[in-house]
């Protein structure tokens, strides 16, 4: 930013290092702190107002249909679909395990995208989105590991093995925990959003996502290869369809949770900003 004034040739003293620009009587670089924070404040509240106008009704429109789809999908997956020829009834864990894996990985992809927007465009909402995604993302990663373990016992004959897929998914859970810890530690200085260091951590951690995805292709693993690929699905349609319902349902629900957490952070910001103004008098 260049000062909106012209240096008067010859008028400046030879020792003076800054051009003097008189707005009233104050030089531009000594403007009161209120002026600068006012601009920042406008930037901060202009977008949340627009965001909240959309987010308020959208929260419910994502939450309830999401929950309904989850219940219908899970109900059909438990009661309607036939058992697998090899695994029998345990195949039904698929309908929650796959959405959990998808959202655990999708959550980190969201964190990485939010981090990119935060670091490049300095958008304050992106920093808040990163914080809001972390908890549900970590939860779904944990659900994926737990349901996978429960599924592994009757099918593979083990609760846990250190194969590529399971190990890389556990690494994702640890990445989430690290991200949450970093975000908590930097909660004070980011107006509810995550700090730059946390955002960079989110961006770097994204390297694990393609590794999880490819782990069953690159390495011999106990976990089977991908069933649903670009070439189609090796899951029979009679077994597959409830997965579509639960995938969509959990995704909508995930969106609703993220919106709720963002709204909570924005409301806390508003309260904190008011408290600070009151404290300043």
């Amino acid at each position, binding site marked *: 930013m260049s000062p909106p004034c012209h240096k008067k040739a010859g008028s400046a003293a030879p020792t003076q290092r800054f051009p003097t620009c008189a707005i009233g009587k104050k030089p531009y670089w000594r403007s009161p702190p209120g002026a600068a924070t006012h601009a920042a404040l406008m930037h901060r509240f202009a977008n949340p107002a627009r965001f909240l106008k959309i987010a308020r009704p959208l929260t419910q429109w994502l939450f309830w249909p999401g929950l309904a789809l989850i219940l219908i999908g899970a109900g059909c997956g438990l009661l309607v679909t036939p058992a697998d020829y090899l695994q029998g009834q345990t195949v039904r864990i698929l309908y929650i395990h796959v959405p959990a894996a998808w959202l655990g990985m999708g959550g980190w992809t969201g964190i990485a995208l939010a981090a990119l927007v935060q670091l490049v465009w300095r958008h304050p909402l992106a920093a808040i989105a990163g914080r809001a995604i972390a908890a549900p993302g970590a939860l779904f990663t944990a659900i994926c590991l737990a349901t996978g373990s429960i599924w592994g016992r009757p099918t593979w004959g083990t609760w846990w093995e250190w194969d590529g897929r399971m190990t890389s998914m556990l690494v994702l859970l640890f990445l989430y925990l690290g991200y949450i810890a970093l975000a908590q530690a930097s909660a004070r200085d980011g107006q509810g959003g995550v700090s730059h260091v946390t955002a960079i951590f989110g961006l770097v951690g994204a390297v694990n996502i393609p590794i999880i995805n490819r782990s069953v292709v690159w390495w011999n693993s106990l976990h089977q290869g991908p069933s649903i690929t670009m070439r189609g699905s090796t899951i029979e349609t009679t077994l597959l369809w409830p997965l579509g319902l639960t995938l969509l349902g959990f995704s909508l629900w995930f969106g609703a949770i993220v919106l709720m957490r963002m709204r909570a952070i924005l409301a*806390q910001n508003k309260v904190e900003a008011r408290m600070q103004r009151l404290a300043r008098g």
Partner: protein
Amino acid sequence: MNQWAFVIAAYAVTAGATIVMSIMSWRAMGSAERAADRLSDRA
């Protein structure tokens, strides 16, 4: 049906976690927004 025990356990874990996260997020949002609204009422 031993297999069903595993299926029920997996669904129960997911249901419990989903419900807890829903309630926690909903409550946190509700109390934060109420506090913010009280500020605007006073202003």
